C-alpha cells in the first residue's frame, strides 16, 4: 500500500541505531522543561521558583481547550522560570528544575483497569490530565485530536508507525520493545472515538515490528498494515490516502476525511496514562550521526539539555556542522547547544560541516523531478520561480498554501535550490496579507 508521488531518500542512517535497544539514562542535574512546545496556547506555570516538586507533578496547567498540561520529569527544586534557547532558534520560556537525584514520584493518577467499559469522556479527560501531545513532531494536544467536532463523522483510526525519515529509529524501537502498550493504546483511542476500524501503518523495512505487532493484534480490532517504503509516508494526509484510500480536502483536517491519525509513541503514552496513571514526562529519542561516538536510542526525560544527551551518546568524534532536532528531512537545525528536548523531539542528528555545505545552489534546469516527487502534486519549480520573483499572487494560484514542507522537492533537485525555504517565505508573506 502506498500513495502517489514521494521520493526515496538514501537511508544508510537507520542501520546506525536500528539494533540498539533503548537505554534509560541516570537522572541528570538539570532539566529545562519548555513551556510552549505544543500547538495552541502555552500552559501557565503553577509552581514558583523555590518550590519542591516531585516526578509527575503538575508544573504548568493547560490554558484553554487547545493546550496541554506539563509535568515535572523528576523530583527536585524549581530554580528558574524564564527564557532558554528554544529549538526554533528564538528564546522560549521554560521551567528549570534542579534534580535532587532521588527521582521520587509525586502522586499519580489511579490506573483505569476497567477502561474498556469506561466512559469515553473520562478517558479523554485522563489523557488531558496527563498532558499528552502528539509525539510525531506536531505536538498537537491529543485530547483535542480525539475530540473531533460533532459534525465530522470519524470512522477510522490510523496509527503512524511508518517512521519514514532517514536516521530515526525511535518509533521502531518502541514498537519492538513495547508492542503490547502500542496495541492497547490503539484500542483505548478507538474506544474514545467509538470506531471499529483501527489500523497501524508500518513501513516494510521494519519487518520485525510488523510481525511482533501482528501476533499481539490477533483477536483485537487492530489491523497491522504494511506500507511501501517511501517518503513522506508518515505524513497524515498520505497515511490516510494509503490506508483508507481517501483524500483529505485541501485546507481541511483528517477528520474531514473521517480519520484520526496518531503516532505510535502517543499510543504508548496513552496506555501509560490510562492503565498506569502516569503523565507524559519522557520519550525515546534517537541520538545519531556518523560523528556520534555511540549512536543509540535513549529514553530521555523532557527537558534534557542537548549536551547531556550527546554526553550519553559518548560525545562526538569531530566538531559537528549541523545539529538537527528531528529527522534530516523536516527537522530544525539548531544554533545553540543549550537547547533542551521536548515531547516532540524524536531524534538528535549530527552532520559534519562538509555534509552541511556540500552543495551550492544553481539555477533550475526544469528537469521535473520535483514535480514527480511532490506528494501534494504541486509544480514546485514553477512555484519557486514565482516566489523568487516576488509573485505571491502566482504562488497562491499554484497552491503554495497546500505545501506540507516535507522537503521531497528540495531533496531531489539536482540544482540544489532552497525550495522549502522559498515555500516557507511565500506562506509567511501570504499569511501576513490575509
Amino acid at each position, binding site marked *: 500500500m502506498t500513495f502517489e508521488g514521494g521520493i526515496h531518500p*538514501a537511508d544508510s542512517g537507520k542501520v546506525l541505531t536500528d539494533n540498539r535497544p533503548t537505554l534509560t539514562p541516570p537522572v541528570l542535574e538539570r532539566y529545562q522543561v519548555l513551556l510552549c512546545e505544543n500547538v495552541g496556547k502555552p500552559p501557565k506555570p503553577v509552581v514558583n521558583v523555590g518550590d519542591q516538586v516531585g516526578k509527575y507533578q503538575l508544573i504548568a496547567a493547560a490554558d484553554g481547550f487547545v493546550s496541554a498540561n506539563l509535568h515535572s520529569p523528576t523530583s527536585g527544586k524549581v530554580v528558574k522560570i524564564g527564557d532558554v534557547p528554544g529549538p526554533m532558534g528564538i528564546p522560549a520560556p521554560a521551567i528549570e528544575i534542579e534534580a535532587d537525584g532521588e527521582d521520587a514520584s509525586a502522586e499519580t493518577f489511579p490506573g483505569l483497569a476497567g477502561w474498556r467499559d469506561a466512559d469515553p469522556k473520562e478517558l479523554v479527560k485522563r489523557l488531558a490530565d496527563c498532558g499528552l501531545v502528539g509525539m510525531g513532531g506536531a505536538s498537537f494536544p491529543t485530547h483535542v485530536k480525539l475530540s473531533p467536532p460533532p459534525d465530522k463523522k470519524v470512522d477510522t483510526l490510523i496509527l503512524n508507525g511508518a517512521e519514514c525519515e532517514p536516521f530515526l529509529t525511535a518509533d521502531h524501537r518502541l514498537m519492538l520493545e513495547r508492542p503490547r502498550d502500542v496495541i492497547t493504546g490503539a484500542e483505548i483511542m478507538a474506544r474514545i472515538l467509538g470506531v471499529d476500524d483501527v489500523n497501524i501503518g508500518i513501513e516494510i523495512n521494519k519487518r520485525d515490528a510488523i510481525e511482533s505487532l501482528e501476533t499481539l493484534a490477533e483477536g483485537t480490532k487492530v489491523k497491522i498494515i504494511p506500507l511501501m517504503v517511501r517518503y513522506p509516508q508518515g505524513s497524515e*494526509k498520505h497515511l490516510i*490516502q494509503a490506508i483508507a484510500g481517501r*483524500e*483529505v*480536502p*485541501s485546507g*481541511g483536517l483528517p477528520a474531514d476525511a473521517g480519520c484520526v491519525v496518531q503516532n505510535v509513541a502517543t499510543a504508548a503514552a496513552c496506555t501509560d496514562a490510562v492503565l498506569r496513571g502516569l503523565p507524559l514526562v519522557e520519550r525515546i529519542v534517537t541520538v545519531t550521526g556518523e560523528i556520534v*561516538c555511540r549512536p543509540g536510542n535513549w529514553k530521555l526525560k523532557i527537558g534534557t539539555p542537548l*549536551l547531556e544527551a*550527546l554526553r550519553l551518546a559518548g*560525545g*562526538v*568524534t569531530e*566538531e559537528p*556542522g*549541523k*545539529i*538537527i532536532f528531528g529527522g*534530516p*528531512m523536516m*527537522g*530544525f*537545525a*539548531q*544554533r*545553540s*547547544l543549550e537547547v533542551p528536548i521536548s515531547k516532540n523531539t524524536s531524534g538528535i*542528528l549530527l*552532520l559534519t*560541516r562538509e555534509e*552541511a*555545505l556540500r*552543495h551550492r545552489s*544553481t*539555477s533550475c*534546469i*526544469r528537469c*521535473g*523531478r520535483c*514535480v514527480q516527487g511532490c*506528494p*501534494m*502534486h*504541486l*509544480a514546485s519549480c*514553477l512555484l519557486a520561480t514565482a516566489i523568487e520573483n516576488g509573485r505571491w499572487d502566482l504562488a497562491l494560484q499554484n*497552491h503554495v498554501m*497546500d505545501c506540507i514542507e516535507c*522537503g521531497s522537492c*528540495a*531533496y*531531489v*533537485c*539536482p*540544482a*540544489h535550490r*532552497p525550495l*522549502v525555504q522559498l515555500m*516557507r517565505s511565500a506562506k509567511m508573506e501570504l499569511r501576513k496579507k490575509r
Partner: protein
Amino acid sequence: MSEEVKNDIKLPTGKRLVLSSSPHISTSESVRKIMLKVLLAMVPVCAAGVWFFGLRALWVIVFTTACCVGAEALWCAMTKKPVLATIRDCSAAVTGVLLALNLPAGVPFYVPLIGAFLAIWLGKQIFGGLGHNPFNPALVARVGLLIAIPAAMTSWTPPRGMDQNYPELKEFRASVDATTCATPLGVAGQRPKLTDRTTAARINFSKLASGRLLLRFFWGVRGGCIGETCVPALLLGGLILFAFNLINWRVPLCFAGTVALFTGIVNICWPGVTPPPLFHLLTGGLLLGAIFMATDMVTCPITGSGCVVFAIGCGIITSVIRIWGNYPEGVSFSILFMNALVPLIDRWCTDRPFGYVRKRKSEVRK
C-alpha cells in the same frame, strides 16, 4: 563553550555550526552528473555516426563540441560571469555533441563554428543561461544554419555500405563520384505526388518502402546527418536516457506514434501522397529528434500530460511539413514551434493537487 574533555568524551563547542532550512540532506545528483549521463547516452549514436561516415564525422563532433564550449567561455568572460563554474556543468558540451549529430558529416569548418555561436549565444545565453532558454539551443543552430548555409547543410556524405551493389539503393546514389548522396525523404519529396487511389500510386511509394530497403534504413545505410541514421544506436541511447530517468518516456513515444498514425492515415486514404508510416519512422531525423531533441529537459513541459500534448503537437507538425511542406524534413521546425508553446502547456496541463476536486469546466475548487 570551552571544549570539555572529561572521561575521554569530546563534546561539541558549537563554533562551526551551519544554519539552513530543512531538508538537511539531499541527493548526490547534480546538473553536471546529469549532463555527463546524457553524454554517455549519446556515445552509441556518435560511434554509429563515425562507423558510417568515417573519421570526418569524428572530427565534426569534436570540433563542434570544442566550439560550443569555447563560445560559452567567451560569453562568460565578456559578461564577467565565472567561466570555469559555468563550463563545469557540461551543458555546452552536450549542446555541442547534439548539434554535431545534426550536421552532415561533410560540413566545412565554418559551419560548426557559426553553429556553435548560434546555439550557445543566441539559443541559450541571451536568455540568461542554462535553464532559462525557451528553445532547444542545438535546434536553433541547426535551423539557423539550414536557412543561412543551405548548400553545406544539405550535402549528404554517402554512408559506409552504400557503395555495395544493392539495387534498391540505386536511386540514392546521386552523384557519379559518390561524394554526395540523396536522403530517402529527399527522394520521396521529389516523387510525383499522385493523389488518386490508383494502384500506380501505391506501387510508386511501396517500392520506396520495400522491406529490404527499410531494413537498410534501419541499420543506417542511408544519407543523413551524423546522428540520425543508425536506429539501433538511437534506441540504445534512448534506453540509457530512460534508465537514468533523464527523459520523460511519453515524449518519444507520442511523437513517433503521432507521426506514424498521421502518415498512416494519409497513406491509407491517399496512397500517392506519402510513403507508408514505417518509412517515415525510419528516415529523416525523427528518431533523433524524438529521443534526444524534443526530450531536452529545459525545453520540455514538466508534467506528464503536458509532455503528451507537446509530443502530439510535434508529431502533427512534423507530418504536415513532411507531407505538404516545402522542406523534406520537418522535425526541427516542429520541435522549435512547440518549444514556444511550452510555457502555455505548463500553465494548462497541471496535475490536480492533492485534496482538490476538479469541477467541470476545469475549475478547481476545494
